[in-house]
């Protein structure tokens, strides 16, 4: 078992596929059908296309602030593919690959980033909590989700995602501690993308790995090549199965790199050199997966082009629909503060409504 054999105290990292797309650890290769692999690959490509196009829209002044996921596609899709549809996810704000893999419509994702809360009213079966901006706070929700699942006699697992910066928060500590003490079915996935905005991982923690923090909570911790989709899948699958059996929570450190800016408001050239980014581009999670799929005969350049063009067109059409979606109706703002409008909110609604009607807005 990976969680028992890999020691988080030394920087032993689980890797199955190297950056050339070669399987270097065949014993650990997960049992995935070509169809499953292609679903994962396509989701990663789709995520990349969405990011690239959204960054263009933002530069054209058509999109608000956006947090791209560039470079982290394997960490996200590899882990999301290992969980069940009824399993819960508590995300931070940079988990596009997870959203897509679990079936979140791009329409909703765009609507949210376009400034409309209705975007986070996802189809119920997606089972991902909304984007959580207060760093690491969502990890606490994951513990409660898992506690409630067990209480209700369900074997759903709750997965929380957080970044390397988030491990400095008290909520990180409390969530791991609660999960450990209560033995809840949780998997905590650290997307160690080396940066919290501009602050390097070395400045967040003195420990050799983030994975080793698990030891302090009496739970397994493991360091994984976050740009290796197979390693992410294999380790997450083991952690999720373990949690589902009732054997408790675990911590996964996905070692990856944020190839883009923190958000579109950020300029990474201030705090990192191009050479560093270039070195990580060489480890691109999508490139290596594609090389593997092509070498195995599951994919080719023509299919790549056809799929990319079709997705790019879909992203374009979806975004254009969102651009025309207009402002939020006034009622939306008032109707979801409480189950029922309070008398004060009702009075304020009537005043605003009359005012905006008079103004012709």
């Amino acid at each position, binding site marked *: 078992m990976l969680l028992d054999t890999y020691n988080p105290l030394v920087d032993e990292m689980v890797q199955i596929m190297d950056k050339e797309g070669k399987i270097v650890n065949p014993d650990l290769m997960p049992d995935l059908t070509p169809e499953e692999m292609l679903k994962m690959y396509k989701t990663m490509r789709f995520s990349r296309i969405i990011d690239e196009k959204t960054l263009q829209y933002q530069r054209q002044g058509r999109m608000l602030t956006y947090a791209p996921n560039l470079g982290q596609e394997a960490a996200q899709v590899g882990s999301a593919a290992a969980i069940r549809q009824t399993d819960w996810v508590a995300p931070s704000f940079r988990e596009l690959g997870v959203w897509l893999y679990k079936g979140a419509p791009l329409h909703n994702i765009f609507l949210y980033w376009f400034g409309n809360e209705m975007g986070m009213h996802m189809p119920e079966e997606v089972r991902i909590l909304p984007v959580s901006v207060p760093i690491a706070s969502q990890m606490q929700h994951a513990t409660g989700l898992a506690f409630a699942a067990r209480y209700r006699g369900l074997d759903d697992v709750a997965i929380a995602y957080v970044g390397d910066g988030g491990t400095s928060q008290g909520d990180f500590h409390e969530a791991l501690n*609660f999960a450990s003490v209560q033995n809840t079915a949780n998997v905590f996935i650290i997307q160690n993308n080396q940066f919290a905005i501009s602050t390097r991982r070395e400045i967040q923690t003195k420990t050799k790995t983030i994975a080793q923090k698990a030891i302090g909570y009496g739970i397994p911790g493991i360091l994984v090549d976050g740009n290796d989709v197979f390693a992410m899948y294999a380790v997450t699958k083991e952690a999720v199965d373990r949690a589902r059996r009732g054997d408790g929570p675990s911590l996964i450190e996905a070692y990856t790199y944020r190839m883009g800016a923190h958000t579109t408001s950020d300029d990474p050239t201030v705090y990192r050199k191009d050479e560093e980014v270039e070195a990580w581009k060489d480890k691109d999670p999508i490139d290596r997966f594609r090389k593997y799929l092509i070498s195995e005969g599951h994919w080719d350049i023509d299919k790549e082009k056809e799929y990319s063009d079709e997705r790019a067109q879909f992203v374009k059409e979806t975004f254009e629909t969102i651009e025309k979606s207009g402002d939020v109706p006034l009622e939306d703002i008032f109707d979801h503060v409480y189950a029922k409008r309070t008398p004060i909110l009702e009075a304020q609604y009537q005043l605003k409504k009359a005012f905006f009607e008079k103004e012709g807005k």
Partner: protein
Amino acid sequence: MSVLNLLEAVNMAMDQSMENDKNVVVFGEDVGVEGGVFRATKGLQAKYGVERCFDSILAESSIIGSGIGMAINGLKPVVEIQFSGFMFPGYNQIVTHAARMRNRTRSLYTVPMVIRMPYGGGVRALEHHSESLEVLFAHTAGLKVVIPSTPYDAKGLLMAAIQDPDPVIFMEPKRIYRAFKQEVPDEPYMIPIGKAKVVKEGKDMTVVAWGAMVRETQKAIEKLEAEGHSIELIDLRTISPIDKETIIKSVQKTGRFAVVHEAATTYGPGGELITIVNEGAFLYLEAPPKRISSIDTVVPLPKGEHYYVPDMALIVEELKSVLEF
């Protein structure tokens, strides 16, 4: 009927809610084995088991945050923050998540959760044990804030809070936890959240109070009525959403207004109440409205606490100044 103090009524409300709904779970620091430092949860773990009533880790953000996850996933957590002054580590979870989850997801996910906390001074406690912080919650969209002043109200309001579809901050005036007993019906009942109660009618003046201040104010009113005044007393019961209508109607009748609270004066709840009166009954006023409240210092330790919270004598004096204006 049982004759109970406020603490026993709180316990009965949780007990009956747990009995009626297996999705109600109770947890917090020391609430399981010990039954809470005040014994509000006494006997619940023995009766319902450790899965339904348990000792949390000593971490307020976890208490609130895990409760949010439970509420989203079908449970009704009733959590205890040991003292309201300890809630700050959990305040982030309350304000940024519990209060907003419904809005953020346009009602896909909601947080039907009760956060109980003893509050207020008068028990000669250590630092951070005597605060009256209701405005910190009342100023946050998405939260309801309820404060009982009697055993009867404590049971009915807490049972209503547990049934409420939204997060409710349930603040318990610990000073009167055991101060007096009252007949409380044995069967479950609910008192509506968002409605104030006219405790006694009067003609010359309206006074609004809540929590432990209701009893102090009642004593002050008895003294003034013996001198021939007629004073209407309203127990606010719910701080948010506030029942403007009952207050305005009363002031339109009496023409004079005062509010008594334990919270500090400046930017305190009295400012909001007086604005409500000014907006709704300004032309009926025969005297400037008055707030009788704690001073704007840090809550003093026991040797200085008597300077801080309004007591019966101060309330009498201040009410008189409004009556005789």
